[in-house]
């Protein structure tokens, strides 16, 4: 049976990066995964099965729950050793759920993107009001909420509306470019945090449609204005 994700793995040079994760080949066989910032450290807690990724991905360094797995706050200090490609795939899917499949769909040309306005107009119940957000408010919110250094490591593929207006005019062009490694995005000018070293190859985390968290933020913007 054809397997799109396996085809991606086969065509990738190792090491490669995926969000904040670095995937290396082990000397004997299999793979080792670690946080990109930990790449040169030895004192890492070792995990040995793909399901270990669920626990690692759940909390940030401070112990807070991570509601958005593609946020740049993956915790440090671990390494995950995996024997085979099937486990690598499962682990990466626990770290960044659904992202490999969306990337495969994009590569095969059948990924459909949805404009933010369409997503908002579709909402019902408590989220219906979110559609009232104005265009300038969207511009500011997306800039703030989706930025790669503090918000989210995904590459935005969706537009603001049917007229294909860009989601945010204030984010750098790279934020919309799947070739660019969002993991290396630096902080605002003058920020002390150095950018993470680039890996040889990278698999982008794609955002084909605004997530539920952004929809909830749109609602908040509208609600805050009402009071």
């Amino acid at each position, binding site marked *: *049976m*054809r*397997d*799109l994700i396996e085809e991606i793995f086969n065509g990738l040079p190792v090491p490669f990066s995926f969000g904040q994760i670095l995937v290396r080949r082990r000397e004997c066989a299999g793979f080792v995964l670690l946080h990109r910032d930990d790449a040169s450290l030895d004192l890492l807690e070792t995990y040995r099965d793909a*399901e270990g990724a*669920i626990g690692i991905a*759940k*909390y940030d360094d401070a112990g807070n*729950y991570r*509601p*958005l*797995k*593609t946020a740049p706050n993956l915790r440090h200090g671990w390494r995950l050793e995996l024997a085979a490609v099937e486990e690598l795939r499962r682990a990466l899917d626990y770290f*960044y*759920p*659904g*992202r490999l*499949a*969306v990337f*495969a*769909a994009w590569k095969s040309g*059948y*990924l*459909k993107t*949805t404009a933010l306005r369409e997503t908002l107009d*579709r909402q*019902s*119940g408590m989220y219906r009001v979110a559609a009232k957000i104005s265009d300038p408010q969207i511009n500011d919110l997306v800039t703030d909420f989706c930025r790669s250094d503090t918000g989210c490591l995904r590459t935005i593929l969706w537009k603001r509306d049917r007229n294909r207006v860009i989601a945010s005019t204030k984010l750098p062009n790279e934020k919309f470019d799947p070739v660019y490694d969002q993991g290396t995005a630096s902080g605002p000018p003058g920020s002390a945090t150095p950018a993470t070293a680039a890996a040889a190859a990278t698999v982008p985390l794609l955002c*084909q*449609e605004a*997530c*539920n*968290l952004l929809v*909830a933020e749109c609602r908040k913007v509208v609600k805050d204005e009402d009071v």
Partner: protein
Amino acid sequence: MSSNKGSALLIVAHGSTVNPDSSAPTLAHAAEIRRRKIFAGVECAFWKEEPSLRDAIFLFDPESLREVYVVPNFISEGYFTQTVIPRELELNGRITKRPNGQIWNYCEPVGSHLMMTELLLKRAHDVAPDVVPAEASLLIVAHGTDLNENSAVAAKREAEKIRAFGKYAAVLNVYMEEPPLVSDWRKLTESPNVVVVPFFISDGLHSYEDIPILLGIAGAAGVDRGRPGSPPPATAHGEIFRQNPYAIDGRKLFYAPSIGTDPGFADIIVEQANAAGKT
């Protein structure tokens, strides 16, 4: 199902942006079903977590997977199963044929399956194995006044079915926010033993903290919140389920984890997919 070779399973659940344990049972059931190799692919999707329901549309390669069975991991039919899931997954009715030819079968929610009654009985037995049912009252707890869900109706239905077996001294459906109230359990029951099973998909604030407070066992477990300098509540780690039985007013109370954490849910998920395949 015609053949499992080209069939995939999608388990859909609510998920949470605040409760780290919300998606855990769904992921565990998916891993178990994957292990059984019944389907060519098994994926999960969540309303509030990743992958999202919108991501789910792209999770199954249309060339190798011809059919997808969508099983909502929900206690009852309601706003999510009737409005949100079909809309987000672009389903139109029980069977949807995508432009790429892939067929999506929309199945009944897990909580509606007949096996749920047996599972509740099993859970009640597991939490109080030495208790004689004739000397015990069984309480099925649902949220109640939840505009989005019909979980109160589902709890009532299950309580009626279990009552009809005549095994337990009494079987009651009780709610957190409407009568019959779970907090009235002392008045509602007379038996020396009381077994409480939360009718929820996952453990979280309700089962860890709210219901224990309503039952009056949060303090007994040493898990009172808010004392300065006190350690985090043991309830947060499921400790509340490990201190059974609670001795209150000369009676014994047994408190079970949410029904959705039972490994038996995996069987019911598969059964719901099978049921859709046969129709």
